[in-house]
């Protein structure tokens, strides 16, 4: 009854204080739920995978041998202990011809029947199984860009690596009739191949009968396993290695048997060979005989030819002698001819001399003639001069005549003038007489006394006129006289002139006469000279005729000589002809001989060939024998050396891609799951502790009452323990129920981009579930008990009294009086209150910092993951296009192709490189798929790949002194610059110094200079890839690829970096789901903590709040009185959370990091800002929610007595 009452009391208590109950419930829900939910993820992932594998009977081991297997081998393995099932099968890698380049397909045999008992059972997704030849099924899930559909035709190349396709499978073209799922590949990758570009894009299955192999290529083995035993259990690994060892042993025996079989066959072959050899020997002997005969014939022919040669030599000698004689004759004729020629030359000389004399005479004549003509000219000139003188004379004569005329005229004029003078004198005399008459008349008249005046005047006028006439006559006389004088003067002048002219005329006459004489003399001289000359001329003509005769003679002689000469020439020609024809004849003879010799040689060759054949046949026979012997020897060697006779057993981890990765991913998720309790459990227990102690504080009096009534301490505390346990259990169970279903699905769903898994089967981690429940219970119940215990220690009476309110205290901050004074009143209150409840402060700050840290870690992961694709494919790999070559190109071939690539405007640069896949020796474990990258030109690698320091981004130089390794590889190896890196390639081990570490995010690379490559591998570097940068003209990549693939057969495939980038991007972003889960968790944590603590704060301080309300505080002021504390705690939490988040993000990035990927390690400042804003948002939201509660506090509370 008592118990019943107590249960009832507890139940009522729960109803009464719902908020308190729910806060404990929620925090337990979150902490237990998240922890168990995330913890359930890894086992669920493993179980889902395992159930899938079990359902498909995935093999446990795959065995491979260099010589394949037969049914006997399979039986032997099946008989082994621990082996449940053996399935032999075929597989091979083939090249698929495609429009955009060639890809590699893994082709495997479909198990016969496909029924129960076979391993690696496939599931038909769509279509049907192959029914006729030429049909195949393909894996439905492929990497992006290699989608296969039913109805597609797969065409295989003629060759696959070094093998011909028709030695592997029967056809080259298969139609896809169905799509399947195979448990052997549950990631989206089919791994790598040694042929083609090394990446397997397709998985094709054919009926086993399509394979041309006579021996199986692999054995799939299933082990006996206890029901329910996990393949992820370490015991499974031990079973595997034990069975593998046993299989190895069987392998040795089977190998022996195999070799024995081979030897038996070899023995048979040898017998057969021996037989053949005998017959061959016989045939060889016959051939030998025939050969000897022909050798004899050949010898005879050789003799004949020798005789022929002798004759030939003789005729050569004869011909030579004849030629010599002809030569001598010719020489004599030549000499004669030379004599004739000399004579002719002498005659010619004489003739020439004569001619010269004649010419001289001629010249003399000519000069005589010239003199003559000169004289004649002189004569003629003189004659002309005489003519001229005559003319002059005549002229002078004329002049003289003229002068005479003039003189005559002048003398006439004188005469005239004298006449005129005479006439004048008469006039004068008449006038004088008239005057005298007139005067006389006048006198007369006067005297007459005539006094008539008129008569007087008339008389006087008459006198006057007469006087005048007399005076005129006088003048005219004077004038005439003057004229006479003048004429006389003139006449005198003319007279002088006449005389002069006369003198001149006489002189001229004299001269003329003299000239006449000279002229006549010259004429006589000329006549003499002419005669003389004409005589010379005659003589010359005579000489000339003589010379002409000589010339004719000479001409005749020359003609004769010329005839002789032409005779000689004819002789010489004949000789030359003979000389020429003689060798031709000889050559003919020689040719004949040589033909004969050739025939002989042919005969010899024939003979030789026969001989060689004979020898070859003999050698062949010999080599067959030695082959057989060496084969036997090989087998013996194998017998003696266990190593080479081994079977190789591969476990799931070794051979199934992502199988180990799945386990590692599961482990990573577990590691993340371990982070949750750190905050959640810590905060949860703190929340419980404060909640419970608050509750017990409140119920102090009640506890006292119970105690006073006689209840035992256990009974009293039991109530509170039950209360807390109930809250904790409810929250924990609810949390587990929900989170176990939810979280694994969300997280594993995120991995669906990496693994192709069937529907998730949730595995409840019972132990974890129980353990976490227990831990949560322990925390809450302990908290309840502790709080109760603390109260119950006090005496009952004291319990009945109200608890003394905790006194105010000076806080440390008040010691800095300056700071304290600078703070406002409300700030002081806040500071005091914060420090008054230290536990609450600690809890709130922890809770908020947990929230902040989770958000920072989440965003930090986002920062770490999301930029790597851009960094890798944008900043570090500068090339946009990658050519894979079908074979390694030498430098020369690469240069030639490079020039052609450079001419293509769609590209803006190319770099040939050698990429080799090697295994690096890590710390105890090999790191596969490390690429040794050797560029064409180490100095110019930065055109396509930016090698830079991960710390400061400074560019690195790829030198010959060591390799540059990528930072993730360096991190895994723990190696730095100056350390050594060891790797193995093609079974050889190499160790090289590390020169520097380069920034890189995806895959591991070892960058090696060409010189170092050659030094290391001891071979010229040949190129198998071309990295290209896209140019302006690159608009249609597919067209570009098709263009180049058709253009050059050495190009195997052309890939676009962007598509690789895209698919990687999608894969890596699956991590964002985890980030989302973390953000939700963070929000929930912040909410619960802040809500719960504010709640406690408010209920503890209800009286205070009521009091300040009574004092007249407004709503806002009242709210801030409490919430200011939350904001300060929030700020502190954000600060602390930033620091924790930084470490947490690093830890998580490291944990989540995939093998070949390096995440960015720095968290962006903006992530802190966002995280802080988000956290602040959560805090403010909670506070807004709490304002209602604040308003609801009644002021009447302030009046109540302290309980």
């Amino acid at each position, binding site marked *: 009854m008592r118990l019943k009452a107590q249960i009832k009391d507890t139940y009522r208590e729960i109803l009464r204080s719902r908020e308190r109950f729910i806060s404990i419930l929620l925090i337990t829900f979150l902490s237990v739920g998240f922890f168990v939910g995330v913890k359930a993820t890894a086992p669920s992932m493993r179980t889902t995978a395992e159930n899938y594998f079990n359902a498909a009977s995935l093999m446990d081991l795959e065995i491979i041998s260099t010589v394949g297997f037969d049914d006997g081998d399979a039986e032997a393995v099946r008989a082994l202990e621990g082996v449940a099932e053996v399935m032999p099968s075929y597989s091979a890698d083939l090249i698929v011809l495609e429009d955009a380049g060639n890809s590699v397909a893994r082709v495997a045999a479909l198990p016969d029947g496909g029924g129960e008992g076979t391993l690696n059972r496939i599931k038909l997704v769509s279509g049907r199984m192959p029914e006729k030849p030429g049909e195949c099924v393909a894996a439905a899930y492929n990497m992006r860009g290699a989608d296969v559909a039913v109805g597609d035709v797969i065409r295989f190349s003629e060759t696959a690596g070094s093998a011909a396709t028709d030695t592997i499978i029967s056809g080259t073209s298969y139609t896809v009739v169905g799509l399947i799922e195979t448990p052997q590949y549950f990631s989206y990758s089919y791994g790598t191949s040694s042929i083609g570009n090394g990446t397997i894009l397709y998985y094709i299955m054919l009926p086993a009968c399509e394979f041309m192999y006579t021996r199986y290529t692999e054995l799939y083995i299933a082990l006996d396993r206890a029901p329910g035993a996990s393949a992820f259990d370490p015991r499974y690994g031990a079973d595997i290695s034990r069975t593998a060892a046993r299989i190895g042993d069987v392998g040795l025996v089977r190998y022996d048997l195999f070799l024995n079989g081979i030897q038996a066959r070899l023995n048979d072959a040898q017998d057969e060979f021996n037989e053949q050899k005998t017959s061959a020997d016989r045939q060889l002997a016959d051939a030998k005989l025939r050969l000897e005969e022909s050798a004899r014939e050949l010898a005879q022919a050789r003799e004949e030819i020798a005789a022929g040669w002798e004759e030939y030599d003789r005729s050569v000698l004869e011909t030579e002698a004849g030629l010599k004689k002809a030569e001598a004759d010719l020489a004599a004729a030549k000499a004669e001819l030379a004599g004739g020629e000399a004579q002719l030359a002498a005659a010619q000389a004489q003739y020439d001399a004569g001619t010269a004399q004649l010419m001289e005479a001629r010249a003399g004549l000519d000069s005589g003639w010239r003199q003559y003509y000169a004289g004649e000219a002189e004569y003629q000139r003189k004659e002309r001069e005489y003519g001229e003188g005559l003319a002059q004379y005549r002229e002078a004569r004329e002049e003289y005549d003229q002068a005479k005329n003039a003189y005559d005229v002048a003398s006439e004029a004188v005469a005239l003038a004298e006449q005129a003078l005479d006439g004048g004198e008469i006039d004068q005399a008449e006038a004088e007489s008239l005057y005298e008459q007139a005067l006389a008349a006048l006198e007369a008249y006067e005297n007459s006394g005539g006094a008539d005046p008129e008569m007087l005047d008339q008389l006087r006028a008459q006198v006057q006129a007469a006087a005048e006439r007399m005076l005129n006559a006088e003048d005219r006389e004077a004038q005439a006289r003057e004229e006479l004088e003048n004429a006389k003067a003139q006449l005198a002048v003319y007279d002088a002139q006449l005389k002069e002219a006369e003198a001149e005329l006489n002189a001229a006459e004299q001269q003329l006469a003299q000239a006449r004489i000279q002229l006549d003399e010259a004429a006589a001289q000329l006549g003499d000279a002419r005669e003389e000359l004409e005589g010379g001329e005659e003589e010359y003509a005579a000489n000339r005729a003589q010379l002409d005769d000589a010339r004719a003679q000479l001409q005749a002689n020359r003609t004769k000589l010329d005839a002789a000469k032409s005779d000689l020439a004819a002789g010489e020609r004949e000789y030359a002809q003979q000389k020429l024809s003689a060798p031709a004849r000889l050559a003919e003879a020689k040719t004949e001989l040589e033909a004969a010799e050739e025939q002989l040689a042919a005969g010899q060759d024939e003979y030789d060939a026969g001989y060689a054949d004979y020898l070859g046949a003999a050698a062949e026979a010999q080599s067959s024998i030695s082959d057989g012997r060496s084969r036997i020897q090989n087998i013996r060697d194998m017998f003696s050396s266990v190593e080479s006779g081994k079977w190789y057993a591969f476990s799931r981890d070794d051979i199934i891609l992502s199988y180990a990765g799945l386990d590692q991913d599961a482990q990573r998720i577990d590691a993340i799951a371990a982070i949750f309790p750190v905050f959640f459990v810590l905060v949860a227990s703190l929340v419980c502790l404060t909640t419970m102690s608050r509750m017990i504080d409140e119920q102090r009096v009640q506890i006292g009452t119970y105690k006073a009534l006689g209840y035992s301490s256990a009974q009293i505390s039991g109530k509170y323990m039950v209360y807390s346990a109930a809250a904790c259990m409810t929250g924990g169970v609810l949390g587990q129920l929900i989170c176990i279903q939810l979280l694994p699905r969300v997280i594993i769903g995120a991995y669906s981009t990496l693994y192709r898994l069937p529907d998730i089967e949730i595995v409840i981690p019972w132990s974890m579930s129980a353990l976490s429940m227990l831990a949560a219970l322990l925390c809450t119940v302990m908290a309840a008990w502790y709080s109760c215990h603390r109260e119950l220690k006090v005496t009952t009476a004291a319990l009945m009294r109200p608890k*003394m*309110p*905790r*006194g*105010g*205290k000076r806080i440390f901050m008040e010691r800095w009086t300056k700071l304290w004074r600078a703070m406002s*009143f409300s700030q*002081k*209150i806040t500071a*005091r*209150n914060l420090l*008054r409840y230290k536990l609450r402060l600690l809890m709130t700050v922890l809770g908020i910092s947990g929230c902040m840290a989770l958000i920072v870690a989440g965003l930090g992961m986002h920062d770490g993951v999301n930029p790597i694709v851009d960094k890798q494919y944008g900043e570090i790999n500068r090339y946009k296009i990658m050519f894979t070559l079908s074979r390694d190109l030498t430098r020369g071939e690469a240069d030639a192709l490079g020039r052609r690539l450079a001419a293509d405007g769609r590209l803006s640069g190319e770099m040939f490189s050698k990429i080799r896949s090697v295994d690096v020796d890590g710390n105890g474990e090999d790191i596969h798929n490390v690429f040794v990258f050797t560029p064409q030109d180490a100095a110019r690698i930065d055109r396509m790949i930016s090698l830079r320091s991960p710390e400061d981004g400074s560019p690195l130089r790829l030198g010959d002194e060591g390799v540059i390794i990528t930072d993730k590889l360096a991190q895994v190896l723990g190696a730095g610059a100056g350390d050594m890196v060891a790797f193995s390639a093609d079974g050889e081990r190499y160790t090289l110094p590390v020169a520097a570490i380069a920034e890189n995010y995806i895959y591991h690379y070892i960058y090696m200079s060409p010189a170092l490559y050659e030094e290391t591998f001891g071979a010229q570097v040949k190129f198998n890839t071309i990295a290209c940068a896209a140019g302006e003209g690159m608009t249609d990549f597919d067209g570009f690829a098709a263009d180049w693939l058709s253009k050059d057969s050495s190009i195997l495939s052309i890939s676009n970096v962007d598509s690789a980038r895209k698919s990687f991007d999608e894969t890596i972003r699956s991590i964002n789901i985890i980030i989302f889960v973390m953000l939700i968790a963070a929000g929930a944590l912040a909410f619960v903590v802040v809500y719960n603590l504010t709640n406690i704060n408010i209920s503890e301080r209800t*009286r*205070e709040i009521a*009091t*300040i*309300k*009574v*004092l*007249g*505080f*407004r*709503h806002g*002021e009242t709210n801030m009185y409490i919430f200011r504390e939350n904001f300060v705690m929030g700020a502190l939490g954000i600060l602390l959370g930033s620091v924790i988040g930084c470490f947490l993000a690093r830890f998580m990035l490291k944990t989540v990091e995939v093998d070949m990927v390096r995440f960015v390690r720095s968290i962006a400042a903006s992530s802190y800002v966002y995280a802080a804003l988000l956290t602040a948002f959560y805090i403010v939201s909670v506070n807004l929610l709490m304002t209602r509660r604040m308003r609801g506090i009644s*002021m*009447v509370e*302030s*009046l109540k*007595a*302290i309980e």
Partner: protein
Amino acid sequence: MEPYIVFRDVYKRYQMGEVTIVAADAVNFEIEKGEFAVISGASGAGKTTVLNMLGGIDNCDEGDIIVDDKRVSALAESQMIQYRRMDIGFVFQFYNLIPNLTAGENVELASQICESDLGAADVLSSVGLRERVDNFPSQLSGGEQQRVAIARALAKKPKLLLCDEPTGALDYATGKKILGLLQQTCKRQNMTVVLITHNTAIAPMANRVIRMRNGSVVSADINPSPVSAERLEW
């Protein structure tokens, strides 16, 4: 002229489940300015309800409450806050000091929210606690704490000083001292003081004594000659 405080037919009912409790049943009384009024009655007589309504802590359901011509009963919530803030000084039975604040700070808490504030130290010295300014409540005796509470109420220069059983938690001597302080304050500052108590022995010191029973005013007498607090005996 209206009296300073008027309660006219004031009702207050509380619903407790199915039972309705009438805490104030047609309360009528008046108090003049500067009076020292004592409302006395047994527990549950409704005196605290009256005080709450007068102090703006609680609303009345019916009737008028008028303080200094202000109809307190008709005030909206924010006006009510303002009324509490500016016009009322409240002294609680359990002092209700903020334990985390020193005496001075507790006074400041009140003085900082109203306009006509007095210096915390001055107010404290007026209640005789000059030396205790920097002490926390837990370091003070009950009487001292109550003095701080009075100082806190006075710091706002209220129109009314409302005291809810101020001596209830104090011993006899201390209680008398507190009453003396209140009486002194009333006289010196002409402060209207309303004090509720179940202790009828306090009544003689009041100017006006209002007796209540079962939510109603039984009598409201004016005491023409109030005795000084020191002379009270109980």
